[in-house]
């Protein structure tokens, strides 16, 4: 199981070299900084350093308890990230695709609402609004009850 919380860019292909060897299915998801307004140049991600890795590890451990996974990886960045840069990635490896897909979705749903990160939009003129959590993100957790 690989968990990385870092400011630096990452190369998913090299991180996943050898990941899930022997598994029948590998699912990867990458989140990319996106500009919905046409005004944003970057995202500033704040986090809670002493809590973040533990919170992500707890989420990952619950995913492993729920599905029969061969391996699992979560990489999440913090700091200033330009539009178009990867912000985070998850990867799951399992014998069968259903477990790999479901575990990846579960990880994403919980990382959205239970990992201590906060995003702020940075425009050409400087810091803008904090990104508000969506009700739909919280609702997404209920499907795993």
């Amino acid at each position, binding site marked *: 199981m690989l968990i990385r919380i870092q400011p630096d860019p990452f190369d998913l292909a090299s991180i996943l070299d050898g990941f899930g060897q022997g598994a029948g299915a590998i699912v990867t998801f990458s989140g990319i900084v996106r500009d919905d307004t046409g005004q944003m140049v970057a995202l500033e991600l*704040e986090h809670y350093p002493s809590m973040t890795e533990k919170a992500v590890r707890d989420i990952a451990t619950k995913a492993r308890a729920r599905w029969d996974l061969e391996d699992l990886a979560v990489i999440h960045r913090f700091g200033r990230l330009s539009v178009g840069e990867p912000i985070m990635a998850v990867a799951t490896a399992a014998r069968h695709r259903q477990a790999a897909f479901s575990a990846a979705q579960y990880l994403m749903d919980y990382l959205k609402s239970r990992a201590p990160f906060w995003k702020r939009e940075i425009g050409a003129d400087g810091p803008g609004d904090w990104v508000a*959590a969506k009700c739909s993100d919280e609702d997404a957790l209920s499907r795993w009850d």
Partner: protein
Amino acid sequence: MDVLYFAWLRERIGEPKERVETSAATVRELVAQLVATDEQHSAALSDLSAVRVAVDQELADLDASLEGVREVAFFPPMTGG
């Protein structure tokens, strides 16, 4: 204990962290003490439906006990991913 603030709560309080002497038994009692401190605390913690809390780096609720606790953090709903 140490009290930490993140994102817009940190901005409204004006500090990321403060040392608080308290006899509060629960998070709710600690909030009441903080709100009484000054206008910044009062503004940041006025709408608790928009505030999440962690007690010693574990997500908790307002009724969580503070017995033996060293660090309490307040922040808006998380937006990871």
